[in-house]
Protein backbone atom coordinates (compact mmCIF):
# COMPACT_ATOMS: atom_id res chain seq x y z
CA UNK A 1 0.00 0.00 0.00
CA UNK A 2 1.15 3.48 -0.82
CA UNK A 3 1.38 5.87 2.06
CA UNK A 4 0.43 9.50 1.73
CA UNK A 5 4.00 10.67 1.79
CA UNK A 6 5.04 8.05 -0.69
CA UNK A 7 2.22 8.92 -3.06
CA UNK A 8 2.95 12.62 -2.77
CA UNK A 9 6.62 12.23 -3.61
CA UNK A 10 5.69 10.08 -6.59
CA UNK A 11 3.19 12.76 -7.57
CA UNK A 12 5.82 15.48 -7.45
CA UNK A 13 8.08 13.34 -9.55
CA UNK A 14 5.32 12.86 -12.14
CA UNK A 15 4.76 16.60 -12.28
CA UNK A 16 8.39 17.55 -12.57
CA UNK A 17 9.25 14.86 -15.07
CA UNK A 18 6.59 16.30 -17.38
CA UNK A 19 4.51 13.18 -17.73
CA UNK A 20 2.84 13.77 -21.11
CA UNK A 21 -0.43 12.06 -20.29
CA UNK A 22 -0.80 14.03 -17.10
CA UNK A 23 -0.21 17.37 -18.76
CA UNK A 24 -2.57 16.45 -21.57
CA UNK A 25 -5.28 15.94 -18.95
CA UNK A 26 -4.46 19.31 -17.42
CA UNK A 27 -4.61 20.99 -20.82
CA UNK A 28 -8.02 19.46 -21.62
CA UNK A 29 -9.34 20.51 -18.26
CA UNK A 30 -8.32 24.11 -18.79
CA UNK A 31 -9.43 24.30 -22.37
CA UNK A 32 -12.90 23.02 -21.55
CA UNK A 33 -13.44 25.04 -18.40
CA UNK A 34 -12.05 28.28 -19.79
CA UNK A 35 -14.22 27.99 -22.87
CA UNK A 36 -17.25 27.29 -20.72
CA UNK A 37 -16.62 30.28 -18.48
CA UNK A 38 -15.98 32.57 -21.44
CA UNK A 39 -19.25 31.58 -23.07
CA UNK A 40 -21.22 31.76 -19.84
CA UNK A 41 -19.91 35.08 -18.56
CA UNK A 42 -21.48 37.73 -20.83
CA UNK A 43 -25.06 36.46 -20.70
CA UNK A 44 -24.73 35.68 -16.99
CA UNK A 45 -23.43 39.14 -16.13
CA UNK A 46 -26.10 40.80 -18.25
CA UNK A 47 -28.72 38.74 -16.43
CA UNK A 48 -27.16 39.75 -13.13
CA UNK A 49 -27.24 43.37 -14.21
CA UNK A 50 -30.89 43.24 -15.23
CA UNK A 51 -31.72 41.58 -11.91
CA UNK A 52 -29.80 44.22 -9.98
CA UNK A 53 -30.98 47.31 -11.84
CA UNK A 54 -34.18 46.33 -13.57
CA UNK A 55 -37.60 46.86 -12.10
CA UNK A 56 -39.99 44.22 -13.30
CA UNK A 57 -42.42 41.78 -11.75
CA UNK A 58 -40.90 38.43 -10.86
CA UNK A 59 -37.45 39.88 -10.25
CA UNK A 60 -37.27 38.67 -6.67
CA UNK A 61 -38.47 35.22 -7.66
CA UNK A 62 -35.75 35.04 -10.29
CA UNK A 63 -33.10 36.13 -7.82
CA UNK A 64 -34.05 33.46 -5.34
CA UNK A 65 -34.30 30.95 -8.17
CA UNK A 66 -30.69 31.58 -9.14
CA UNK A 67 -29.59 31.40 -5.52
CA UNK A 68 -31.34 28.05 -5.26
CA UNK A 69 -29.66 26.80 -8.40
CA UNK A 70 -26.32 27.45 -6.69
CA UNK A 71 -26.77 24.35 -4.62
CA UNK A 72 -27.84 22.05 -7.42
CA UNK A 73 -25.57 18.98 -7.45
CA UNK A 74 -23.34 18.69 -10.48
CA UNK A 75 -24.55 15.17 -11.17
CA UNK A 76 -28.10 16.44 -11.54
CA UNK A 77 -26.92 18.87 -14.20
CA UNK A 78 -24.94 16.02 -15.71
CA UNK A 79 -27.93 13.72 -15.75
CA UNK A 80 -30.22 16.40 -17.20
CA UNK A 81 -27.84 17.10 -20.04
CA UNK A 82 -27.17 13.41 -20.50
CA UNK A 83 -30.87 12.79 -21.05
CA UNK A 84 -31.12 15.81 -23.34
CA UNK A 85 -28.09 14.92 -25.43
CA UNK A 86 -28.43 11.17 -25.54
CA UNK A 87 -29.57 9.92 -28.89
CA UNK A 88 -32.92 9.08 -27.35
CA UNK A 89 -33.20 12.59 -25.97
CA UNK A 90 -34.69 15.69 -27.60
CA UNK A 91 -31.28 17.00 -28.66
CA UNK A 92 -29.97 13.59 -29.65
CA UNK A 93 -29.61 14.61 -33.29
CA UNK A 94 -26.74 16.89 -32.40
CA UNK A 95 -24.69 13.81 -31.43
CA UNK A 96 -22.91 15.75 -28.74
CA UNK A 97 -22.85 13.21 -25.93
CA UNK A 98 -19.30 12.22 -24.94
CA UNK A 99 -17.72 15.23 -26.62
CA UNK A 100 -15.94 18.21 -25.20
CA UNK A 101 -18.86 20.34 -26.30
CA UNK A 102 -21.15 18.33 -24.03
CA UNK A 103 -18.78 18.97 -21.14
CA UNK A 104 -18.71 22.64 -21.98
CA UNK A 105 -22.51 22.75 -22.00
CA UNK A 106 -22.67 21.08 -18.62
CA UNK A 107 -20.09 23.42 -17.17
CA UNK A 108 -21.87 26.46 -18.58
CA UNK A 109 -25.03 25.31 -16.84
CA UNK A 110 -23.08 24.84 -13.63
CA UNK A 111 -21.30 28.19 -13.70
CA UNK A 112 -24.26 30.27 -14.83
CA UNK A 113 -26.10 30.43 -11.49
CA UNK A 114 -22.88 31.23 -9.62
CA UNK A 115 -22.05 34.03 -12.01
CA UNK A 116 -25.57 35.42 -11.83
CA UNK A 117 -25.93 35.18 -8.06
CA UNK A 118 -22.49 36.52 -7.18
CA UNK A 119 -22.55 39.02 -10.03
CA UNK A 120 -25.91 40.22 -8.85
CA UNK A 121 -24.73 40.90 -5.34
CA UNK A 122 -21.59 42.62 -6.65
CA UNK A 123 -23.60 44.81 -8.99
CA UNK A 124 -26.14 45.56 -6.34
CA UNK A 125 -23.38 46.81 -4.09
CA UNK A 126 -22.36 49.21 -6.85
CA UNK A 127 -23.37 52.79 -6.32
CA UNK A 128 -26.52 53.52 -8.27
CA UNK A 129 -25.09 56.96 -8.96
CA UNK A 130 -22.47 55.31 -11.19
CA UNK A 131 -25.20 54.14 -13.53
CA UNK A 132 -27.00 57.49 -13.44
CA UNK A 133 -23.86 59.52 -13.84
CA UNK A 134 -22.84 57.46 -16.84
CA UNK A 135 -26.25 57.98 -18.42
CA UNK A 136 -26.33 61.72 -17.75
CA UNK A 137 -22.85 62.07 -19.19
CA UNK A 138 -24.15 60.72 -22.47
CA UNK A 139 -23.17 57.05 -22.30
CA UNK A 140 -25.38 54.66 -24.24
CA UNK A 141 -26.87 51.88 -22.12
CA UNK A 142 -24.24 49.35 -23.17
CA UNK A 143 -21.42 51.65 -22.20
CA UNK A 144 -23.17 52.56 -18.97
CA UNK A 145 -23.48 48.85 -18.16
CA UNK A 146 -19.81 48.24 -18.79
CA UNK A 147 -18.94 51.30 -16.73
CA UNK A 148 -20.88 50.01 -13.75
CA UNK A 149 -19.31 46.59 -14.22
CA UNK A 150 -15.89 48.18 -14.31
CA UNK A 151 -16.64 49.96 -11.05
CA UNK A 152 -17.32 46.62 -9.31
CA UNK A 153 -14.82 44.62 -11.32
CA UNK A 154 -13.30 42.96 -8.28
CA UNK A 155 -16.64 41.60 -7.17
CA UNK A 156 -17.28 40.31 -10.65
CA UNK A 157 -13.80 38.85 -10.85
CA UNK A 158 -14.47 37.05 -7.59
CA UNK A 159 -17.65 35.64 -9.11
CA UNK A 160 -15.68 34.54 -12.13
CA UNK A 161 -13.06 32.83 -9.97
CA UNK A 162 -15.67 31.09 -7.87
CA UNK A 163 -17.46 29.84 -10.96
CA UNK A 164 -14.23 28.71 -12.57
CA UNK A 165 -13.18 27.00 -9.38
CA UNK A 166 -16.42 25.08 -9.29
CA UNK A 167 -16.42 23.87 -12.86
CA UNK A 168 -12.75 23.01 -13.10
CA UNK A 169 -12.97 20.81 -10.02
CA UNK A 170 -16.30 19.21 -10.73
CA UNK A 171 -16.54 15.46 -11.43
CA UNK A 172 -20.18 14.48 -11.81
CA UNK A 173 -21.23 16.37 -14.90
CA UNK A 174 -17.90 15.98 -16.69
CA UNK A 175 -17.87 12.25 -16.09
CA UNK A 176 -21.41 11.76 -17.35
CA UNK A 177 -21.28 14.09 -20.32
CA UNK A 178 -17.70 13.59 -21.41
CA UNK A 179 -17.37 9.91 -20.63
CA UNK A 180 -13.80 10.27 -19.33
CA UNK A 181 -12.31 9.43 -22.73
CA UNK A 182 -8.53 9.44 -22.70
CA UNK A 183 -6.93 12.42 -24.46
CA UNK A 184 -10.32 13.85 -25.29
CA UNK A 185 -12.70 14.31 -22.41
CA UNK A 186 -10.61 13.14 -19.48
CA UNK A 187 -10.07 16.22 -17.36
CA UNK A 188 -8.46 16.66 -13.98
CA UNK A 189 -11.38 15.68 -11.74
CA UNK A 190 -12.51 12.68 -13.79
CA UNK A 191 -8.92 11.52 -14.05
CA UNK A 192 -8.54 11.80 -10.29
CA UNK A 193 -11.70 9.75 -9.84
CA UNK A 194 -10.41 7.12 -12.28
CA UNK A 195 -6.88 6.94 -10.90
CA UNK A 196 -8.21 6.65 -7.39
CA UNK A 197 -10.50 3.81 -8.37
CA UNK A 198 -7.50 2.11 -9.92
CA UNK A 199 -5.47 2.70 -6.81
CA UNK A 200 -3.01 4.95 -8.64
CA UNK A 201 -2.90 7.52 -5.90
CA UNK A 202 0.23 9.27 -7.13
CA UNK A 203 -1.49 10.35 -10.35
CA UNK A 204 -4.49 11.52 -8.38
CA UNK A 205 -2.39 13.54 -6.00
CA UNK A 206 -0.33 15.03 -8.81
CA UNK A 207 -3.51 16.25 -10.49
CA UNK A 208 -4.79 17.51 -7.18
CA UNK A 209 -1.60 19.50 -6.76
CA UNK A 210 -2.15 21.06 -10.17
CA UNK A 211 -5.66 22.12 -9.17
CA UNK A 212 -4.46 23.56 -5.89
CA UNK A 213 -1.62 25.43 -7.54
CA UNK A 214 -4.03 26.82 -10.08
CA UNK A 215 -6.51 28.09 -7.55
CA UNK A 216 -3.72 29.47 -5.39
CA UNK A 217 -2.24 31.33 -8.36
CA UNK A 218 -5.59 32.74 -9.40
CA UNK A 219 -6.42 33.89 -5.91
CA UNK A 220 -2.99 35.39 -5.35
CA UNK A 221 -3.31 37.22 -8.65
CA UNK A 222 -6.74 38.42 -7.68
CA UNK A 223 -5.63 39.84 -4.36
CA UNK A 224 -2.62 41.40 -5.97
CA UNK A 225 -4.79 43.13 -8.57
CA UNK A 226 -7.23 44.20 -5.95
CA UNK A 227 -4.54 45.62 -3.74
CA UNK A 228 -2.93 47.49 -6.62
CA UNK A 229 -6.13 48.74 -8.18
CA UNK A 230 -7.88 50.22 -5.22
CA UNK A 231 -5.81 52.63 -3.20
CA UNK A 232 -7.49 53.60 0.04
Amino acid at each position, binding site marked *: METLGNATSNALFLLISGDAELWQIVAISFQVSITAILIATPPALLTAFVLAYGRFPGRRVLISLFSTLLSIPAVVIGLTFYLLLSRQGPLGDWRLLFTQTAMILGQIALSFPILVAMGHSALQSADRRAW*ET*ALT*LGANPLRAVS*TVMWEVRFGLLAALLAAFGRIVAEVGASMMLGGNILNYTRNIPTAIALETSKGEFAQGIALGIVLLTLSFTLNALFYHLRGGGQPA
Partner: protein
Amino acid sequence: MTHTPLKLHFNDVHKRFGRRPGLIGVNIQLIGGEGTVLTGPNGAGKTTLLRILAGLEKPDRGSVDMGLGATRWRRCYSDLRTSILYLHQHPYMFDGSVSSNLAYAISDKHNRCLCQQRISEALKWAGLTAIADNHAKTISGGERQRVALARAWLREPRALLLDEPTANLDPEARTRTLELLFRLKESGIALLIASHDPHHFASLADKHLQLTQGVLAEEFSETSNVTPFRRTHP
Protein backbone atom coordinates in the same frame (compact mmCIF):
# COMPACT_ATOMS: atom_id res chain seq x y z
CA MET B 1 -22.10 79.31 -26.19
CA THR B 2 -24.12 79.43 -29.33
CA HIS B 3 -27.32 77.68 -28.32
CA THR B 4 -30.55 79.42 -28.99
CA PRO B 5 -31.93 80.47 -25.63
CA LEU B 6 -33.48 77.47 -23.98
CA LYS B 7 -37.06 77.41 -22.92
CA LEU B 8 -38.38 74.28 -21.32
CA HIS B 9 -41.80 73.95 -19.79
CA PHE B 10 -42.79 71.09 -17.57
CA ASN B 11 -46.49 70.96 -16.99
CA ASP B 12 -48.63 69.26 -14.41
CA VAL B 13 -46.03 66.82 -13.11
CA HIS B 14 -47.44 64.26 -10.69
CA LYS B 15 -45.61 61.60 -8.74
CA ARG B 16 -46.69 59.44 -5.85
CA PHE B 17 -44.50 57.57 -3.37
CA GLY B 18 -46.56 54.58 -2.41
CA ARG B 19 -49.63 56.16 -0.85
CA ARG B 20 -48.06 59.49 -0.06
CA PRO B 21 -48.41 62.15 -2.74
CA GLY B 22 -44.90 63.27 -3.77
CA LEU B 23 -45.48 65.93 -6.37
CA ILE B 24 -48.86 67.41 -7.15
CA GLY B 25 -49.32 69.24 -10.40
CA VAL B 26 -45.95 70.91 -10.54
CA ASN B 27 -45.38 73.42 -13.31
CA ILE B 28 -41.85 74.63 -13.83
CA GLN B 29 -39.87 76.39 -16.54
CA LEU B 30 -36.19 76.33 -17.28
CA ILE B 31 -34.93 79.31 -19.22
CA GLY B 32 -31.41 79.61 -20.61
CA GLY B 33 -29.15 81.82 -18.53
CA GLU B 34 -31.61 82.00 -15.68
CA GLY B 35 -30.89 80.76 -12.20
CA THR B 36 -33.65 79.28 -10.08
CA VAL B 37 -33.29 78.30 -6.45
CA LEU B 38 -35.61 75.64 -5.13
CA THR B 39 -36.15 75.46 -1.40
CA GLY B 40 -38.30 73.35 0.77
CA PRO B 41 -38.23 71.14 3.85
CA ASN B 42 -36.73 67.70 3.86
CA GLY B 43 -38.85 65.15 2.10
CA ALA B 44 -40.75 67.73 0.15
CA GLY B 45 -39.75 66.07 -3.09
CA LYS B 46 -36.99 68.41 -4.29
CA THR B 47 -34.65 65.61 -5.32
CA THR B 48 -37.45 63.67 -6.98
CA LEU B 49 -38.45 66.71 -8.97
CA LEU B 50 -34.91 67.26 -10.20
CA ARG B 51 -34.51 63.61 -11.12
CA ILE B 52 -37.78 63.61 -13.01
CA LEU B 53 -36.79 66.69 -14.94
CA ALA B 54 -33.45 65.12 -15.83
CA GLY B 55 -35.10 62.02 -17.23
CA LEU B 56 -33.81 59.70 -14.49
CA GLU B 57 -37.20 58.96 -13.04
CA LYS B 58 -40.61 58.57 -14.51
CA PRO B 59 -43.45 60.83 -13.38
CA ASP B 60 -46.91 59.36 -12.98
CA ARG B 61 -48.28 62.08 -15.17
CA GLY B 62 -47.03 65.21 -16.84
CA SER B 63 -45.87 66.63 -20.11
CA VAL B 64 -42.85 68.44 -21.46
CA ASP B 65 -42.78 71.30 -23.89
CA MET B 66 -39.38 71.70 -25.49
CA GLY B 67 -40.56 74.43 -27.77
CA LEU B 68 -42.45 72.20 -30.14
CA GLY B 69 -45.63 71.70 -28.19
CA ALA B 70 -46.40 69.40 -25.29
CA THR B 71 -44.92 65.91 -25.55
CA ARG B 72 -45.57 62.79 -23.53
CA TRP B 73 -42.78 61.94 -21.12
CA ARG B 74 -41.95 58.57 -22.57
CA ARG B 75 -40.96 60.07 -25.89
CA CYS B 76 -38.42 62.50 -24.57
CA TYR B 77 -36.20 60.60 -22.13
CA SER B 78 -33.21 60.77 -24.38
CA ASP B 79 -33.86 64.41 -25.27
CA LEU B 80 -34.11 65.25 -21.61
CA ARG B 81 -30.92 63.38 -20.85
CA THR B 82 -28.97 65.11 -23.59
CA SER B 83 -30.10 68.60 -22.79
CA ILE B 84 -30.45 68.47 -19.03
CA LEU B 85 -27.73 67.36 -16.66
CA TYR B 86 -28.43 66.34 -13.10
CA LEU B 87 -25.66 66.48 -10.51
CA HIS B 88 -25.95 64.35 -7.42
CA GLN B 89 -25.49 65.93 -4.05
CA HIS B 90 -22.32 63.89 -3.71
CA PRO B 91 -21.09 63.60 -7.28
CA TYR B 92 -20.00 60.13 -8.29
CA MET B 93 -16.38 59.71 -9.30
CA PHE B 94 -15.54 56.83 -11.61
CA ASP B 95 -12.65 54.63 -10.66
CA GLY B 96 -9.73 56.33 -12.39
CA SER B 97 -7.84 59.58 -12.50
CA VAL B 98 -9.47 62.99 -12.45
CA SER B 99 -8.71 63.50 -16.12
CA SER B 100 -10.17 60.14 -17.07
CA ASN B 101 -13.32 61.17 -15.23
CA LEU B 102 -13.44 64.26 -17.39
CA ALA B 103 -12.80 62.18 -20.50
CA TYR B 104 -15.97 60.26 -19.77
CA ALA B 105 -18.01 63.35 -20.55
CA ILE B 106 -16.58 63.75 -24.02
CA SER B 107 -18.84 61.94 -26.40
CA ASP B 108 -16.71 62.21 -29.50
CA LYS B 109 -13.40 60.56 -28.74
CA HIS B 110 -12.20 59.92 -32.22
CA ASN B 111 -9.71 62.70 -32.28
CA ARG B 112 -7.26 61.99 -29.52
CA CYS B 113 -5.46 65.33 -29.69
CA LEU B 114 -8.66 67.29 -29.59
CA CYS B 115 -9.85 65.13 -26.73
CA GLN B 116 -6.72 65.77 -24.70
CA GLN B 117 -6.97 69.44 -25.43
CA ARG B 118 -10.56 69.61 -24.27
CA ILE B 119 -9.64 67.80 -21.07
CA SER B 120 -6.84 70.18 -20.26
CA GLU B 121 -9.12 73.13 -21.00
CA ALA B 122 -11.68 71.71 -18.61
CA LEU B 123 -9.04 71.09 -15.96
CA LYS B 124 -7.93 74.67 -16.28
CA TRP B 125 -11.48 75.97 -16.27
CA ALA B 126 -12.24 74.24 -13.00
CA GLY B 127 -8.80 74.80 -11.48
CA LEU B 128 -8.07 71.09 -11.29
CA THR B 129 -4.86 71.00 -13.32
CA ALA B 130 -2.76 70.30 -10.23
CA ILE B 131 -4.69 67.16 -9.34
CA ALA B 132 -5.32 65.93 -12.89
CA ASP B 133 -3.60 62.60 -12.28
CA ASN B 134 -4.88 62.03 -8.77
CA HIS B 135 -7.20 59.14 -8.22
CA ALA B 136 -10.70 60.56 -8.37
CA LYS B 137 -11.96 58.54 -5.41
CA THR B 138 -9.40 60.14 -3.12
CA ILE B 139 -10.05 63.83 -3.74
CA SER B 140 -11.95 66.13 -1.38
CA GLY B 141 -15.63 66.96 -1.52
CA GLY B 142 -15.04 70.41 -3.01
CA GLU B 143 -12.79 68.95 -5.67
CA ARG B 144 -15.38 66.33 -6.48
CA GLN B 145 -17.97 69.03 -6.93
CA ARG B 146 -15.63 70.85 -9.30
CA VAL B 147 -14.87 67.66 -11.26
CA ALA B 148 -18.61 67.19 -11.65
CA LEU B 149 -18.98 70.77 -12.85
CA ALA B 150 -16.06 70.36 -15.24
CA ARG B 151 -17.78 67.26 -16.64
CA ALA B 152 -20.91 69.33 -17.03
CA TRP B 153 -18.92 72.05 -18.77
CA LEU B 154 -17.53 69.49 -21.22
CA ARG B 155 -20.91 67.97 -21.79
CA GLU B 156 -22.48 71.35 -22.62
CA PRO B 157 -26.01 70.72 -21.42
CA ARG B 158 -28.67 73.37 -21.80
CA ALA B 159 -29.82 73.11 -18.23
CA LEU B 160 -28.05 72.02 -15.10
CA LEU B 161 -29.92 70.67 -12.10
CA LEU B 162 -28.00 70.66 -8.85
CA ASP B 163 -28.91 68.94 -5.63
CA GLU B 164 -27.46 70.75 -2.59
CA PRO B 165 -24.23 71.57 -4.41
CA THR B 166 -22.64 73.34 -1.47
CA ALA B 167 -23.80 71.21 1.42
CA ASN B 168 -20.92 69.91 3.53
CA LEU B 169 -18.40 72.16 1.76
CA ASP B 170 -16.10 74.48 3.64
CA PRO B 171 -16.49 78.17 2.82
CA GLU B 172 -13.57 78.30 0.43
CA ALA B 173 -14.73 75.29 -1.57
CA ARG B 174 -18.21 76.76 -1.60
CA THR B 175 -16.92 80.00 -3.06
CA ARG B 176 -15.06 78.21 -5.82
CA THR B 177 -18.09 76.08 -6.64
CA LEU B 178 -20.32 79.14 -6.82
CA GLU B 179 -17.80 80.84 -9.06
CA LEU B 180 -17.95 77.97 -11.53
CA LEU B 181 -21.74 77.92 -11.36
CA PHE B 182 -21.75 81.63 -12.09
CA ARG B 183 -19.64 81.13 -15.19
CA LEU B 184 -21.88 78.30 -16.37
CA LYS B 185 -24.89 80.52 -15.95
CA GLU B 186 -23.18 83.33 -17.85
CA SER B 187 -22.64 80.97 -20.76
CA GLY B 188 -26.38 80.59 -21.14
CA ILE B 189 -27.12 77.44 -19.20
CA ALA B 190 -30.27 77.31 -17.12
CA LEU B 191 -29.56 76.50 -13.48
CA LEU B 192 -31.96 74.88 -11.07
CA ILE B 193 -30.51 74.56 -7.61
CA ALA B 194 -32.20 72.70 -4.81
CA SER B 195 -30.90 73.88 -1.48
CA HIS B 196 -31.66 74.39 2.19
CA ASP B 197 -29.53 77.52 2.21
CA PRO B 198 -30.94 79.75 -0.49
CA HIS B 199 -28.88 82.71 0.68
CA HIS B 200 -25.70 81.00 -0.57
CA PHE B 201 -27.01 81.30 -4.09
CA ALA B 202 -28.33 84.83 -3.94
CA SER B 203 -26.01 86.05 -6.65
CA LEU B 204 -27.19 83.27 -8.98
CA ALA B 205 -30.87 83.41 -8.24
CA ASP B 206 -33.22 85.11 -10.58
CA LYS B 207 -36.16 83.29 -9.14
CA HIS B 208 -36.99 81.50 -5.89
CA LEU B 209 -39.34 78.58 -5.74
CA GLN B 210 -40.59 76.74 -2.73
CA LEU B 211 -41.74 73.15 -2.71
CA THR B 212 -43.98 72.30 0.23
CA GLN B 213 -45.68 68.95 0.46
CA GLY B 214 -45.48 68.41 -3.25
CA VAL B 215 -46.83 71.81 -4.22
CA LEU B 216 -44.59 74.31 -5.91
CA ALA B 217 -44.96 78.03 -5.23
CA GLU B 218 -42.94 81.09 -6.15
CA GLU B 219 -41.42 82.94 -3.26
CA PHE B 220 -40.20 86.51 -3.05
CA SER B 221 -39.07 86.94 0.50
CA GLU B 222 -35.57 86.89 1.97
CA THR B 223 -33.69 87.51 -1.23
CA SER B 224 -33.15 91.25 -0.86
CA ASN B 225 -31.19 91.24 2.38
CA VAL B 226 -28.61 88.65 1.39
CA THR B 227 -25.30 89.79 0.05
CA PRO B 228 -23.84 88.30 -3.12
CA PHE B 229 -21.37 85.49 -2.55
CA ARG B 230 -18.34 87.43 -3.74
CA ARG B 231 -18.56 89.66 -0.78
CA THR B 232 -19.06 87.02 1.89
CA HIS B 233 -15.35 86.26 2.02
CA PRO B 234 -13.32 89.31 1.26
